């Protein structure tokens, strides 16, 4: 059972496998993925081979049936080897989470869940829209249904790995006469859509996510529309799930930066046996920041998993829960930059160089993306409003 704290997974051996995949199929390619801004094919071939793309699909549909805590741990481990690969993995799992939490009441999606396991589909997401800005709770485009078939067109400024995905979950208005906030989420399959590129993805970091902008033209069966309003999907899954799995992979990124810093400190200590170098003190300080990043994440994870197990839908639309999840996002995205910067000071020139084993260039560039994907200022503004509404 998805939300059961005691499913039969042996997390230790599972994570050993994830580390092995990380070492063999992520780390050796991380630099070329970053340099060429290309999709990490090697990583996803390995993740597919081990059926990790359906890790969150319940066991009864053939998936691994991991819960959110276990899944987050995988994101964290992958983040230590290649943050772009980990980000794609995390974003995919968010889409799987939307289907698993909200659509398995429908026969269509029950069959789709089995197919996801068998074919190891990679799912992308089209939430933001030209003309709306980053407000994912509003849509301009609308799904048009006639005789059980739909058509849907969306101008999406960003669809991460859109060109490499097997299917995309698209948010849109429920109907042409629905207000902007009355949204549904629609699963569109690769054979039923065309993507026309609007914008490229030549960025500082997370270059391997290939998050180009597209005009999406799609059609399909009306049963591909998720059977519940997006409002509830957003508050129970899209919003908390995203910030938790993102926070987890950022934690992995920060952990790897400090591991590199530790290597530098050790080399320094070897030069003068018996003398603890200044960089060792800096490392001890940086580790406290990592500790607080990890603590915040664990707190939010425990909170979210408890609510999922309790199954009280109202709890997710509660302001205090939404504020806590937003706090997690803002806090983790700031701390990851702080930690990588501290690691840079410890590693010195070796960290600053692009061609050294201790290079932190990719880590630093990736880290800055964290506060921009769903901009922290937008989130802070929402929290300001909710603080006024919240009652203690």
């Amino acid at each position, binding site marked *: 059972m998805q939300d059961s704290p005691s499913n039969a997974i042996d997390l230790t051996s599972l994570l050993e496998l994830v580390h092995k995949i990380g070492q063999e199929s992520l780390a050796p390619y991380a630099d070329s993925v970053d340099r060429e801004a290309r999709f990490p094919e090697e990583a996803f071939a390995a993740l597919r081979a081990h059926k990790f793309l359906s890790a969150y699909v319940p066991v009864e549909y053939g998936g691994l049936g991991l819960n959110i805590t276990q899944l987050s741990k995988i994101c964290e481990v992958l983040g230590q080897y290649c943050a772009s690969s980990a980000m794609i993995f995390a974003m995919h799992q968010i889409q799987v989470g939307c289907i698993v939490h909200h659509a398995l009441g429908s026969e269509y999606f029950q069959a789709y869940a089995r197919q996801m396991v068998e074919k190891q589909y990679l799912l992308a997401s089209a939430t933001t829209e030209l003309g709306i800005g980053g407000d994912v709770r509003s849509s301009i485009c609308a799904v048009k249904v006639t005789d059980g078939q739909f058509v849907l067109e969306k101008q999406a400024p960003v669809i991460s790995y859109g060109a490499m995905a097997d299917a995309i979950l698209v948010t849109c208005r429920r109907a042409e006469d629905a*207000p902007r906030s009355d949204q549904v989420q629609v699963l569109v399959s690769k054979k039923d859509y065309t993507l026309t590129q609007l914008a490229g993805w030549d960025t500082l970091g997370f270059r391997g996510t290939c998050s180009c902008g597209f005009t999406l033209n799609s059609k399909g069966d009306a049963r591909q529309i998720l059977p519940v309003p997006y409002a509830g999907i957003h508050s129970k899954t899209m919003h908390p799930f995203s910030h938790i799995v993102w926070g987890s992979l950022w934690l992995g990124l920060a952990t790897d930066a400090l591991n590199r810093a530790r290597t530098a400190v050790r080399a320094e200590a070897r030069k003068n046996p018996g003398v603890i170098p200044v960089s060792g003190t800096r490392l001890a300080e940086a580790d406290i920041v990592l500790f607080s990043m990890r603590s915040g994440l664990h707190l939010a994870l425990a909170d979210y998993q408890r609510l999922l197990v309790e199954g009280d839908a109202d709890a997710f*639309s509660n302001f205090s829960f939404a504020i806590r999840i937003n706090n997690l996002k803002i806090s983790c995205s700031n701390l990851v930059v702080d930690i990588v910067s501290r690691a840079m000071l410890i590693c010195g020139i070796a960290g600053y160089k692009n061609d050294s084993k201790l290079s932190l260039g990719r880590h630093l560039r990736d880290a800055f993306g964290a506060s921009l994907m769903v901009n922290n200022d937008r989130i802070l503004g929402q929290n300001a409003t909710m603080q006024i509404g919240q*009652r203690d």
Partner: protein
Amino acid sequence: MHTEQIRALVAQHARLSVNANDLTDDSDLYGAGLTSLTTVNLMLALEDHFNVEFTDKMLGRKTFGTIRSLSEAIEDLLNK
């Protein structure tokens, strides 16, 4: 009941995509464009107008879903 006063406050503060006068007492306000963030504006306006304070438990979709449910909530608060 306070439905007419509430309807006027909804019109002014809820930033709906439809004319509030076209809403029945049982129309779904979220379906008409109310969002979790605009409920805060509406909540402040209602509290100010009726001189009440919503409890934490009332701050949810059940209370803010329709003009009727809002009216019942206000009635409860006024009778406390």
